């Protein structure tokens, strides 16, 4: 009897999740005694998230290697399984069976704790993202703040890894990582503040709800990325999130041609795998936040497509951003650490602060009523952010006399 109820609840839960219905877990939870319900509920929420993102992680590593291979005119991994799709499994097995080496002079406890301390916050960050219409693990009033708070605590883990290894490359890598992450956290937060300001809420659910309208007969979504401040904020958010997740061209903490592997130099086996996983999880989380803040979260791009389950849109947008990250990684060389910091402080920070002003102007010009007001608003915002962009860009490159050069030839 109980077992029948359990399976009925389980089926209903899956059905309701698949069809975007609310209260998915209610019937299943009713099977259990009330005292056990909070724990069961938590397990039911957490395990699919970890499972889905772990699968996504495996797929992304494969996608990245395949994509980079194709960008570089190679085939990419193609040995394990058909078209190499079992490559992540092979990688995982390799990682798990490798010897776990702790350097003799390392600080063993901190060396052990660092990957754990890194993995926990990156997984915690998934707690506040709305994955679908009724799929929010924790609907928190200060959700965005929570996200940034847990994101900030990963820096300490990287420092722990770099310092405890007692390796000069690790130490240099850790110092670079901290400098970089602190610098880019500010533009990251400020560029999302413009969204928070317009939406008037720190709750991801509320922010998505505000992007749920459609204009022009359902063909233009009301996403924040389609406003001038939103576009600028989105681009800055993307650049800052590349830096936050240590992806190329901001992969200087683990720049393999300079610092071997930075803070990961002395890690092997499962601990290395944890770092690797945390890096990808961080990338997913920050892309998920970008989707939430700027790309309308789980909303479909056109109104008539809303019949497709909402989580499909969320994950499609997420993977789109991940592909963009891979594409960038396959193209650009790495910045130097001081240029990186200059870029953060002299370009990103002023521009993101200015973007706040643009967002405010956008907010207060909403009352414009004359014909062509929408276009005028748009152009005003674009000019307000575009002119300083050109000016700051010129100033940043002009300060060091960086120019296009011509060359002499002797016969």
């Amino acid at each position, binding site marked *: 009897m109980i077992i029948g109820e359990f399976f009925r609840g389980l089926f209903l839960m899956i059905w309701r999740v698949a069809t975007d219905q609310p209260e998915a877990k209610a019937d299943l939870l009713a099977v259990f005694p009330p005292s056990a319900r909070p724990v069961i509920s938590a397990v039911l929420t957490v395990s699919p998230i970890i499972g889905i993102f772990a699968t996504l992680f495996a797929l992304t590593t494969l996608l990245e290697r395949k994509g980079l291979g194709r960008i570089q005119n190679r085939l990419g991994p193609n040995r394990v399984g058909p078209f190499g799709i079992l490559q992540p499994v092979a990688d995982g097995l390799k990682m798990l069976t490798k010897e776990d080496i702790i350097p003799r002079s390392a600080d063993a406890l*901190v060396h052990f704790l660092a990957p754990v301390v890194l993995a926990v916050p990156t997984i915690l960050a998934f707690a506040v993202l709305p994955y679908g219409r009724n799929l929010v693990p924790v609907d928190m009033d200060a959700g965005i*703040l929570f996200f940034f*708070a*847990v*994101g900030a605590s990963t820096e*300490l883990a990287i420092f722990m890894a770099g*310092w405890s290894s007692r390796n000069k490359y690790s*130490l240099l890598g850790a*110092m670079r990582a*901290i400098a970089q992450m602190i610098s880019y956290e500010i533009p990251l937060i400020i560029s999302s503040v413009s969204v928070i300001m317009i939406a008037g809420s720190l709750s991801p659910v509320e922010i998505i709800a505000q992007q749920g309208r459609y204009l022009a007969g359902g063909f233009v979504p009301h996403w924040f990325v389609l406003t001038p401040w939103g576009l600028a904020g989105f681009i800055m958010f993307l650049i800052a999130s590349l830096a936050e997740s240590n992806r190329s061209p901001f992969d200087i903490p683990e720049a393999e041609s300079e610092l071997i592997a930075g803070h990961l130099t002395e890690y092997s086996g499962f601990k290395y795998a944890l770092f690797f996983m945390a890096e990808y999880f961080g990338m997913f989380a920050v892309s998920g936040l970008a989707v939430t803040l700027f790309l309308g979260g789980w909303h479909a791009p056109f109104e008539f497509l809303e019949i497709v389950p909402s989580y499909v849109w969320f994950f499609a947008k997420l993977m789109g951003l991940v592909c963009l990250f891979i594409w960038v990684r396959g193209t650009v060389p790495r910045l130097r650490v001081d240029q990186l910091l200059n870029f953060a402080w002299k370009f990103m920070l002023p521009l993101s602060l200015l973007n706040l002003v643009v967002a405010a102007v956008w907010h207060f010009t909403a009352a414009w009523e004359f014909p062509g007001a929408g276009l005028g608003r748009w152009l005003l915002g674009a000019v307000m952010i575009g002119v300083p962009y050109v000016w700051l860009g010129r100033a940043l490159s002009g300060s060091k006399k960086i120019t296009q050069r011509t060359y002499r030839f002797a016969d």
Partner: protein
Amino acid sequence: MQAAFAIIAALTLVSAIAAMSLRNLVHCALCLAVAFAGLAAMYLQLDAQFVGFAQVLVYIGAVAILVVFAILLTRSGQPVPHSVVSRSWIAGVAIAVLVFCVLTRVILSSSVSQRSLPAKPSPTVREIGNQLMTWYVLPLQVIGLLLTAATIGAVIIAMNERKSAGGDHRVTADQGHGHGHLAAPTGLNEGNATSIASETGSESPAHYPQPEREREVLAK
């Protein structure tokens, strides 16, 4: 609830004590971060979400990082060679106990402890924002001004230091720790530049034009 509080409080206290007493500065800083996290957990337990997250963001994400960065830049996290406890620790403990007793006495006898607790407020972020921007706007501005002034001061101090430190690093590095000296290739500056010049001169006939600048260089 009580048990959770006890665990968090114990963790916070233990890590705070460890932050004071461990010999390795980096360990101290890490323990301090744990203590900050414990405090944040307490705020969250009191349903003060905003303060709790701000605590994590500011104290773990910024202050603790700043502390370890400072340690890295100055001492490379070397453990101090001597014990961190001073010789007159008995006097210290005595004073601490005395202060604790006085405080306990004062708190117990004050009227605050007799007053009943007000109903638990559950402030939303929006309310906090409204309060900050209306009732507390002056303190907020003053704090902002103070922090800006401090930042500018720090920048000025750092700029001065850089100016005074701009010597020839290479020489100081050599003096600093008699490292095996590399025969400086700069010495070639004084060497004779004529060899290539004469070679090119003799072997390349006149119809091999060289730009003006190169002639100068080669003739030097």
